């Protein structure tokens, strides 16, 4: 308790306006939330510029370099889309889980298991080496989705059955997945002692635009592959599930108010399992698409942390499936241009700055700041 009768702290009276923070009574307009995301990205670019400046670089040149090497020509736009493809899928995987407030931090591990599942078809081998390409695509896809989903199922069952915190269990599953993959690339499928498997035969690859260069010369050298179509279709499917289906309604209701959902007779445990299966399946599909569309062999370095970037993408897109596509292209560009950037932690740091600003700016969707003229008393 202060002795002063005035509730306002003394010393602020010289300022003719005062700021008042009030909870929003109405939902903010629809454009507001995307604008916040955009503002967060712009501000983080400024902060990034400041850090690059501190490190002795030229921020303007760096950003022009990023823009040129990710959107400067048809060829690099195609490369950006290749990087965006797995990001869209893991971004969707995180979005659908986060919408129900299930914190699936394990997309990275589910991605690895998806890649492993796809490799299994080619390397075990499940299919004969000269099986038709369409059959390879279907089976590797099914296997990738299956193993990704299984990897998501384990923490889901633990959560539903034993109430085990899914943040930690999904994260632990990431480390286990990486060791699992390592065992196979070092020991079982090692190609002549190297820490990678043999190159998949051509008919196990996803078709790329460049494969059609004979018919359409403009496609020459373009690496964009069929996985992008899977990713875009998956975005539409996730959008339809979330907004148009009964299941999506249940997911959103549990996310907004689990008690209300429980009283409405919705089984939360069943939805935890189903959502984690879908989320893991999407991340597994990302792994399959990356392994059959880009890398064409199983090896250690198949992901520069796609699964973790997916978390930020989901948040940047405000869990909107179409927003995920836009955010993924942005981050695809950042990863593509960031490959040769030194030190190598810069993309991680910029992602961290963006995420911190995003979560901080969420404040403005829940509160307004009213500026009023201070009255003379």
């Amino acid at each position, binding site marked *: 308790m202060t002795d002063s009768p005035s509730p306002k702290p003394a010393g602020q009276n010289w300022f003719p306006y005062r700021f008042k923070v009030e909870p929003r009574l109405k939902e903010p307009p629809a454009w507001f939330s995307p604008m916040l995301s955009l503002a967060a990205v712009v501000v983080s670019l400024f902060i990034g510029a400041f*850090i690059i400046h501190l*490190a002795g670089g030229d921020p303007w040149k760096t950003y022009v370099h990023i823009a040129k090497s990710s959107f400067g020509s048809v060829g690099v736009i195609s490369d950006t889309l290749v990087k965006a493809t797995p990001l869209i899928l893991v971004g969707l995987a995180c979005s659908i889980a986060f919408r129900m407030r299930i*914190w699936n*931090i394990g997309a990275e591990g589910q991605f690895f298991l998806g890649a492993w599942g796809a490799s299994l078809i080619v390397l075990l081998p499940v299919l004969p080496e000269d099986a038709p390409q369409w059959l390879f695509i279907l089976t590797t896809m099914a296997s990738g989705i299956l193993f990704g989903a299984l990897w998501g199922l384990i923490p889901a069952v*633990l959560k539903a059955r*034993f*109430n*085990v*915190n899914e*943040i*930690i*269990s999904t*994260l*632990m*599953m990431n*480390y*286990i997945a990486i*060791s*699992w993959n*390592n*065992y196979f690339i*070092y*020991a079982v499928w090692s190609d002549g002692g190297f820490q990678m498997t043999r190159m998949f035969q051509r008919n196990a690859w996803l078709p790329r635009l460049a494969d059609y260069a004979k018919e359409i010369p403009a496609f020459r050298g373009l690496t964009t592959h069929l996985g992008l179509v899977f990713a875009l279709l998956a975005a539409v499917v996730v959008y339809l599930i979330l907004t148009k289906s009964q299941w999506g309604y249940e997911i959103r209701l549990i996310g907004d108010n689990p008690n209300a959902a429980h009283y409405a007779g919705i089984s939360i445990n069943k939805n935890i399992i189903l959502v984690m299966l879908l989320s893991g399946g999407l991340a597994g599909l990302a792994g399959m698409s990356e392994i059959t569309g880009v890398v064409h062999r199983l090896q250690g370095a198949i992901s520069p942390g796609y699964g*973790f970037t997916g*978390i*930020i993408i989901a*948040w940047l897109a405000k869990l909107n499936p179409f927003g995920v596509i836009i955010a993924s292209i942005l981050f695809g560009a950042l990863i593509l241009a960031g490959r040769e950037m*030194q*030190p*190598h*932690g*810069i*993309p*991680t*740091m*910029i*992602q*961290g*700055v963006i*995420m*911190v600003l*995003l*979560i*901080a700016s*969420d*404040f403005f969707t*829940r509160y307004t700041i009213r500026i009023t003229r201070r009255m003379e008393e």
Partner: protein
Amino acid sequence: MDLIIVLSAGVATGTALLFATVGEIFAERSGVMNLGVEGMMLLGAMTAYSVSASSGSPWLGALAGMLAAGLISQIHAYISITLKADQVVSGLALNFLASGVSLVLGEGLNSLKGVPALPFFSIPLLVNIPILGDILFKNQSVLVYIGYLLFPLAWYFINRTRPGLHLRAVGEYPSAADSQGINVIGLRYFYTFVGGLLAGLGGAAISLAISPGWFSEKTSAGLGWIAVGLVIFAQWDPIRAAGGSYIFGALRRLILDIQGPTTILGLRNPFYYNPYYGFFLQMLPYAFTVVVLVLGSREAIRKRMGTPAALGLPYVRGQRGL
């Protein structure tokens, strides 16, 4: 493979885990869940190593590591306490930020040679206790001994002192605490800071004592996340946290050592003859964390206790609820 060496090294590794876990217990007991422990540990390890290299004083390094992690924890405190954002998302964001900053600023540190580490010594008299003396008091880092003091003191502070009562009140029933004139917001900021300091000390313990050096994100290798899991297993009790930490430390060390001998208990050692089986051993600490979480969660359900009631909830004065 000598069991005493495994246990004694396990106590050392467990010390890093102990600091981080006890720090997170302080933060969570006040109602703030901070998932950024892994990032804060990395930042602490990087800063401690870097400052120790440039100043020549490992003590200054450890202090700088603590302060760096403590300061960055205040970003999470501001976002989750003042801006009342979701603590899960904010903690994850802090984790990305702190890891990214550590990787950028730590670039090149791994090539440094002869960075001074914290001293190792034996405790006279106590070291003469058979077996236990060799495990606990023989040629350990000074931080290990600080760890022995920390967890009983933390337990005493939380359960037997007046400030500890305030800490628990703020995490269990903040509006009641507020009505008694306890500064809920201030205490939550303070204990988030304490959590950061201790996570930073955990990081410094890795880079300056247990496995001296800077190995990018491999420096902490998920220890921060294991610490978050151990908090649940420990039921927010520093003494149980210590038990869990030391067991985990021994497990990590055992995995390294079990691949050495040709036979174990007279049987052919499969890990020696096929070193690739080591990848399955590497999974064990993470798989074990999940098992420990299952045990902790079952117990929490059975006893209907443990979790601070206001954990994860922002406090708004005058609003209904806790």
